[in-house]
């Protein structure tokens, strides 16, 4: 089955097209969306299994020889990310049933979610830089639809900012691709990886590398380019926020990872040091934001920015520990952010507000929710048996082995601030004098709580069983550090 790696892209696209035909029938919408999500998860897990056993899967569309057609490549890194994003989208679909509201469900909500899945899975799988742009646009279009979905006043206001910023960064993306094409004459990533080292004019390539950092930095929210994210993500309802927070910025992070390990390795002293410094500044900016707010959504949103900084710092070190750590941390962070947003969603529904100062005493009425939140919070901060620990440990080790040992110290210090910011939610919302909560039907509470608990359980398994997952992670890191395997897989014919 040479087309196996395309299934996580084709299946949601097909189901999204089917769902467009009967928007008003909620029961069918829910069932078919759930079936589509589940099939995608199954296909992606089988794909990851195949990649792990048989090596990198690559197919060049339309039976054209490799640099001329569009190559789709699934190495361990992209297979892992496709599995993670498919699982998260499936859980978001389940979580949406009780929480998104009938009106939204009747106006193409599930097709938009599935189209977002198409874009994310495609961006993780593609091996062509312009095709990456197209898939990023697919996911952005779906995210535009989702950010205004429902048409509340704050959503409309933030959607304008979000769309303007993304159109600007996308046009910059096209311009940068044009520069790259005029210098190298190819857009296939594997072919680029062959051609770039042959070009002696590294000055212009360094400029292009920095331009790509700016482009993907807008998508991934790195230090000076993150300003659009906190208010834009606070606008849409919780399931959409969970989807955005878990997936969208990570596509930018993945793109930086891919381009900075596969293509732009000609001037590491400059580009990767710049990346490292920006990553540290991103961590600092995110930590300040996470401590500054009394709004639960804002606190977790700023934690997204911190995590982007941590992952990119690991990438910038370009050594085995750093890269492995950032891959582990990337997968962990996607899962834990979705879980945390789910938990925050239940808390805000119960209190009817996202202001911490108006909450309290939830541990007495909802002990299960409280302890699940505490586990997720400890996981985020990286307390040893949980999933945040192995990744951060490797990144810190990578920093000490590399040139920027002070960056590792900042990351260790930032973990304390992350812990403080999330435990503050625990203290305010779960301890103290009980505040009256809004009534919530037991059935819809369970419908929201069960996917959350399962997702938290997955992160716990991912952390406690880190030894089991390490072969996958280090296999993915090996391809990033030694791209010949990637190039050979594409040019096999």
């Amino acid at each position: 089955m040479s087309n196996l790696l395309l299934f996580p892209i084709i299946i949601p696209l097909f189901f999204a097209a089917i769902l467009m035909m009967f928007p008003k029938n909620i029961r069918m919408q829910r069932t078919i969306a759930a079936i589509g999500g589940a099939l995608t998860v199954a296909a992606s897990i089988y794909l990851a299994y195949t990649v792990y056993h048989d090596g990198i899967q690559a197919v060049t569309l339309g039976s054209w020889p490799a640099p001329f057609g569009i190559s789709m490549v699934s190495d361990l890194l992209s297979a892992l990310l496709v599995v993670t994003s498919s699982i998260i989208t499936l859980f978001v679909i389940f979580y949406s049933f009780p929480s998104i509201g009938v009106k939204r469900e009747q106006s193409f909500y599930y097709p938009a979610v599935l189209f977002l899945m198409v874009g994310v899975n495609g961006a993780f799988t593609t091996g062509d830089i312009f095709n990456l742009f197209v898939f990023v646009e697919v996911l952005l279009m779906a995210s535009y639809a989702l950010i205004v979905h429902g048409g509340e006043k704050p959503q409309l206001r933030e959607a304008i900012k979000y769309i303007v910023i993304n159109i600007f960064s996308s046009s910059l993306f096209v311009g940068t691709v044009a520069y790259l094409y005029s210098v190298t004459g190819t857009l296939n990533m594997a072919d680029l990886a062959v051609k770039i080292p042959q070009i002696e004019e590294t000055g212009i390539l360094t400029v292009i590398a920095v331009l790509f950092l700016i482009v993907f930095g807008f998508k991934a929210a790195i230090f000076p380019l993150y300003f659009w994210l906190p208010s834009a993500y606070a606008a849409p309802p919780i399931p959409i926020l969970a989807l955005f927070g878990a997936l969208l910025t990570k596509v930018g992070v993945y793109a930086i990872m891919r381009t900075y390990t596969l293509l732009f390795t000609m001037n590491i002293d400059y580009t990767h040091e710049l990346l490292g410094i920006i990553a540290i500044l991103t961590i600092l900016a995110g930590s300040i934001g996470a401590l500054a707010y009394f709004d639960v959504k804002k606190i977790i949103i700023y934690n997204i920015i911190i995590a982007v900084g941590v992952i990119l710092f690991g990438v910038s070190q370009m050594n085995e520990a750093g890269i492995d750590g950032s891959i582990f941390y990337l997968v962990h962070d996607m899962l834990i952010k979705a879980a945390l947003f789910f938990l925050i969603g239940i808390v805000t529904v119960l209190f009817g507000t996202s202001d911490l100062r108006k909450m309290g005493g939830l541990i007495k009425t909802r002990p299960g929710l409280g302890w699940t939140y505490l586990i997720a919070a400890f996981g985020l901060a990286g307390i040893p048996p949980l999933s945040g620990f192995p990744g951060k440990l490797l990144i810190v080790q990578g920093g000490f082995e590399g040139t920027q040992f002070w960056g590792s110290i900042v990351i260790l210090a930032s973990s304390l601030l992350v812990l403080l910011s999330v435990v503050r939610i625990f203290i305010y919302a779960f301890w103290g004098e009980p505040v009256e909560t809004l009534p919530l039907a037991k059935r819809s509470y369970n419908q929201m709580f069960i996917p959350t608990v399962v997702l938290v359980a997955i992160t716990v398994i991912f952390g406690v069983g880190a030894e089991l997952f390490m072969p996958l992670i280090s296999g993915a890191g090996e391809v990033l550090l030694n791209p010949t395997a990637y190039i050979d897989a594409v040019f096999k014919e």
Partner: protein
Amino acid sequence: MRTNDVMLQTATKVVTFIILVFAIHIFFAGHYTPGGGFVGGLLTASAVVLLMLAFDIRTVKSILPINYVTMTAIGLILALGTAAASIVFDVPFFTHAYDYFTLPLFGETSLHSAMLFDAGVYLVVVGVTITIIQTIGEDE
């Protein structure tokens, strides 16, 4: 005051068919000459828009009782299905096939599966364009 636009409406009745035929010509010519699904779709949509200008949206809806959202979905499935047919034959996705057929009236004609993909594109373009125009036009 209600103006009498009998000239516009009479001209539209003639011109719409010319535009539609030209759209179909452009759509079929796309393989060898400039054209294809995208421009063909836009031209078809422009014919419908001309009808909407000369008459009104409700009349056009009763002439063409089409759900354009469903049309977009069918176009997507057609395009995806053409590309995915390659999976059945276990060749890379998007691999197209063509052959020469002797058809009545046309004689020997080459038929290419890229045409089916283009038909999908055509349906999506028509569906999306008219959905946009209809929703803005009906908005109070």
